[in-house]
């Protein structure tokens, strides 16, 4: 298993605000890792540190290199997108390709052209004339033509409608991702990507709240839908959270005893969004 990113005790403060507070995590090759957190949790700061775009304290290795001193070498194997719907409006599509061709040593122009030929994006269009969805396609064409080992996506589908968001992830899985590639993605729309992820990292006020593979989440967390008369019994077992839904009480348990829980009601694996809310509340309590 190749480790692409290795952070330990990663910290960063803006004045008195701790954007990252002793964060430690690893990212391995062939994984799709979701970095999930509320606004201001430190997601973007963490990504910036990985990309060598900010100073920090603690230890951080990206592809075995130090992003503070070897950013140039790291960026040959790392690709970064913040918000796929934005590219310079005055630029023509062909010029955008020229630009990346000159900037990035691993850019394969023919792959980008090939991908674009399957879309409605024209080489001589100005980016300002393209629809948001078309800009996304252009952005994807540029990114997917780069032979990168690590792709970092920061809220990539912000402002796109549901169809384009689906299309974006579909293309990413179909034309880009394979076991040699690794994706690190932040998003607010967790439901949309949770089935794509192999791992999730929850971050809240600079601290990691959870860092698990999706498989071990299914082992560790259980949601039980409990009939009202069993609710008190469920509370006795120390649930992480409790919600009411259609007259039933839904309890979320961490490391619960499967035998006891089966007695209470119907069990299932919680969704990432519910799990996230429960973990954040647990911290605030």
């Amino acid at each position, binding site marked *: 298993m190749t480790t692409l990113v290795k952070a330990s005790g990663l910290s960063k403060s803006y004045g008195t605000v701790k954007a990252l507070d002793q964060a430690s995590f690893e990212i391995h090759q062939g994984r*799709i890792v979701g970095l999930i957190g509320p606004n201001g949790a430190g997601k973007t700061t963490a990504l910036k540190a990985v990309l060598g775009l900010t100073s920090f304290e603690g230890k951080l290795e990206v592809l075995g290199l130090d992003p503070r001193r070897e950013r140039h070498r790291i960026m040959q194997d790392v690709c970064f997108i913040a918000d796929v719907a934005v590219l310079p409006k005055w630029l023509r599509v062909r010029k955008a390709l020229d630009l990346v061709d000159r900037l990035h040593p691993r850019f394969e122009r023919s792959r980008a052209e090939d991908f674009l030929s399957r879309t409605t994006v024209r080489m001589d269009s100005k980016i300002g004339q393209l629809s948001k969805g078309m800009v996304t396609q252009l952005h994807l064409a540029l990114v997917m033509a780069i032979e990168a080992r690590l792709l970092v996506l920061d809220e990539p589908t912000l402002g796109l409608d549901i169809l384009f968001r*689906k299309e974006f*992830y*579909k*293309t990413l*899985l*179909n034309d880009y*991702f*394979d*076991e040699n590639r690794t994706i690190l993605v932040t998003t607010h729309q967790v439901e*949309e*990507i949770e*089935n*794509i*992820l*192999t791992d999730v990292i929850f971050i809240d006020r600079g601290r990691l709240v959870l860092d698990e593979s*999706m498989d071990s989440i*299914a082992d560790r967390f259980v*949601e039980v839908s409990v009939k009202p008369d069993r609710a008190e019994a469920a509370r006795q077992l120390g649930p992480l959270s409790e919600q009411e839904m259609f007259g039933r009480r839904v309890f979320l348990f961490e490391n619960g005893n499967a035998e006891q829980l089966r007695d209470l009601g*119907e*069990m*299932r*694996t*919680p*969704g990432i969004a519910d799990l996230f809310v429960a973990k954040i509340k647990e911290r605030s309590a």
Partner: protein
Amino acid sequence: MDPNWNDSQPIYRQLRDRVVEMILEGILGDGDALPSVRSVAAEYRLNPLTVLKGYQELVDEGLVEKRRGRGMFIMEGAKKALLAGERELFLNEQWPSVVATIRRLGLNLDDLVEIARPELEETEGDER
């Protein structure tokens, strides 16, 4: 197209069940190719490992075979094997309680066969 995954079973398991259903319904026949892991992952926006895990279940059950470099294929006799399994399940688990009910209610076996005959003959006709 979005399949409606439920939360009570892992998705790889639901994927496996779906393929089994398609085999039983004859949508996928002996020797047919399964869609590639990549295309299923992209279409349903699933992690490829999830799809692979579902396919692996089918391989382990002897319903699907991997052909190197060519993909996954339905094994010869997969439907037959599935049907045999279903029949065995019925005879071992459901039939005894049906028999017990028949006895408890004091039903006559010949009458029961007579009642069921028209419908059974109809479905037999469908199967051929």
